């Protein structure tokens, strides 16, 4: 009897596996849905609880609805072989375009792109499409530094208002910034934010605390609290959870957000948020496929394409006249009279073998020449001159940001991330 039991268990295990195989064998992937509607697949790192992913999900649903294509979304796809499996599965199920939203998805999406030459694979924030030589793999990003700059102006006005109200002196106008990694995207973001703030509040300084994670609610909360305890009067962040905004709300410190409005959770401290609106890009890629046109290998959205936006100003927390000032600055950014990375507005004095390597500055420490690592490689080879006409040309040679200079006035508290 005992032996029989064991044999039966084994037989059942085999039978189960056999049925599973039998169930799967026949079905062929169908290229089109019954209605013949075009299908677009999306891969998201987290779900709508992450501000970063919510921003993508909302745009994807909106774009698909507007253009009458079928939306297929996969959430919580990690940055490993699961991402390749998800991308290949979407291609199997007849999607004409597969889009992935997280930086770490890139190479796994490329793996799928090689396998499915007739499906277009698009990837946000990636750096490799312009050198990969894969006709059906594309990167996209937006000149978010313009949005950060605008948000920075709103932050600077808030600092000015608090200085005038006598809450602290002009010298104490210190901003705190919670960053994810010491990655160019983050550095470009906080630098443009700082330059925006300093354009209206000249005495502003900034401290940056890194968390070593794109999504770590506890870590981001702790980092924001640390910065507040160090005397930061205003906090902004580049990380994807609600950690920093909620820390600000409970400490009563003004917060400039990212990826979308956090006013619902933080009604007293939320000032404004910059974000990338991905709807224009999604519409662009879908229309390209519909019309049989090639998608750009490397697409950069701007304020002009409607890709870079700031949310409504929260009157309860923002300084008076913020909206009017922002309208003025936005106009300046659009017509080119204001340049975010104008080299005359910042100085670089710390040039070593590990930081700001290769930067050339004049007698006043203003940048005159710098080569950035635009073509991604393991040796971090600085391959492209990016200073032209007194300006650091961000997002010109590649959509993903490559500004990685540590400028004066910003102190990074922990570099090892």
């Amino acid at each position, binding site marked *: 009897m005992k032996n029989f039991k064991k044999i039966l268990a084994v037989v059942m295990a085999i039978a189960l596996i056999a049925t599973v195989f039998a169930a799967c064998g026949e079905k062929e992937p169908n290229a089109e849905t019954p209605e013949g509607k075009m299908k677009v697949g999306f891969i998201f790192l987290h779900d709508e609880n992450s501000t970063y992913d919510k921003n993508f999900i909302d745009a994807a649903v909106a774009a698909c609805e507007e253009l009458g294509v079928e939306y297929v979304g996969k959430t919580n796809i990690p*940055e490993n072989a699961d991402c390749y499996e998800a991308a290949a599965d979407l291609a199997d199920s007849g999607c004409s375009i597969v889009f992935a939203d997280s930086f770490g998805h890139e190479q796994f999406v490329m793996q799928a792109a090689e396998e499915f030459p007739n499906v277009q694979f698009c990837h946000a924030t990636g750096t490799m499409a312009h050198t990969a030589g894969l006709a059906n793999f594309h990167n996209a990003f937006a000149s978010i530094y313009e949005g950060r700059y605008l948000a920075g102006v709103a932050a600077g006005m808030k600092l000015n208002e608090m200085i005038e109200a006598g809450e602290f002196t002009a010298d104490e106008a210190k901003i705190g910034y919670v960053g994810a990694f010491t990655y160019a995207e983050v550095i470009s973001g906080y630098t443009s934010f700082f330059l925006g703030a300093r354009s209206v509040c000249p005495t502003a300084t900034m401290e940056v605390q890194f968390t070593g994670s794109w999504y770590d609610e506890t870590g981001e909360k702790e980092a924001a609290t640390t910065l507040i305890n160090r005397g930061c009067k205003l906090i902004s962040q580049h990380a994807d959870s609600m950690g920093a905004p909620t820390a600000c709300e409970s400490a009563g410190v003004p917060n400039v957000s990212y990826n979308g409005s956090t006013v619902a959770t933080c009604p007293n401290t939320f000032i404004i948020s910059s974000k990338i609106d991905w709807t224009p890009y999604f519409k662009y890629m879908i229309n390209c496929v519909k019309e049989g046109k090639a998608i750009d290998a490397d697409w950069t959205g701007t304020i002009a394409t409607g890709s870079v936006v700031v949310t409504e100003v929260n009157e309860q927390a923002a300084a008076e006249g913020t909206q009017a000032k922002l309208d003025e600055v936005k106009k300046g950014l659009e017509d080119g009279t204001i340049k975010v990375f104008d080299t005359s507005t910042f100085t670089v004095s710390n040039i070593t073998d590990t930081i700001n390597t290769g930067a050339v500055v004049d007698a006043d420490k203003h940048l005159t020449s710098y080569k950035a690592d635009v073509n991604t490689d393991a040796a971090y080879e600085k391959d492209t001159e990016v200073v032209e006409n007194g300006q650091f040309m961000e997002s010109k040679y590649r959509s993903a940001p490559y500004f990685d200079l540590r400028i004066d006035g910003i102190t990074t508290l922990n570099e090892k991330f």
Partner: protein
Amino acid sequence: MASKIVKNHTPLFHIAKRDELPFYKSLLIRIGSIVAALIVCAIVIIAFTGENPLSIYATIVEGAVGTKRRTWGLFQNVAMLLCVSLAVTPAFKMKFWNIGAEGQVLMGGLATIYVMMFYGETLQPAVLYPVMVIASILAGAIWGLIPAVFKALWNTNETLFTLMMNYIAIQLISYYTYVNAVPKGSGQIGIINSDTKAGWFPSLGGYDYLLNIIIVAALTVFMFVYLKYSKHGYELSVVGESENTARYIGINVKKVIIRTMLLSGAMCGIAGLLLVAGTDHSITRETAGGRGFTAIMVSWLAKFNPIYMILTSLLLVFLEKGAIQISTKFQLNPSFSEILTGIIIFFIIGSEFFINYRIMFRHSAKKEVK
């Protein structure tokens, strides 16, 4: 009625331990529990989403085995979960609460990726693969050995110790990916050796995951034999039942603890090898994907029997794959699928109660009928 109870002093029902049930009966109880779970899930589905439960169940099946690719993905994931489950089993059978499998897997993976990155170009494949295997086994075994030694010599709490070792492993991975990140500062190392494929597991007959699956199948047989027929297996189960008995019959308990954890850690190291060299070709903090913890459930549900573990890991992965498809197709938050999985597992665990115990109702009513 009430007066009767008072008279007889018999409760409505009482619980008694069962003798071993015939196999078909315990099978019936198990099937019954799954049917009951599906009914409860159906009620939850209708109450919270208004969707048709049958189409949700169909979607689970579709998500798990709907296409050839999904089926391969299912078996690959079953193999990985099973591998970690096999690894934790000897320790659990010994009642050594190793919740550090996550860290042991990551250390095995870290050793693998290190060899692939820094020796992938210089070593011949005939040397490279054995070095990767040895490095991953050693790394996992050392991560398992440390808490075992402390337990054996100073009787430290292995639960806390192994848990903390996980965090150390995760931070080591963070540091490694920070130092070797591409592009600079991104904290990601990406796919390693994508052009040379040095250190990648070969695909057998065009199937990328087949080698992984074969290795885990072999490990399953090994673990079954080891636990069932080897002297080591017998010794560790005696230590698990009673350390004093073990000592009395002359088993060196310290030696058994250390030896078993070495084996447990080494097998976790192999899981790390399979995940890095045979699956992702990269490493992140999430490479182990929580398998170190899920494995505990797989192992316990199967009562430490490696053959049953095939079924329990298949069940869990099946539900997990189905859950992804549910959230895609019905645009429900993935947490909802996790609720369904929770209900099903609750019922399965509950069914064990009815297999081991029986509920005896008061007999008086029956007697009257007779």
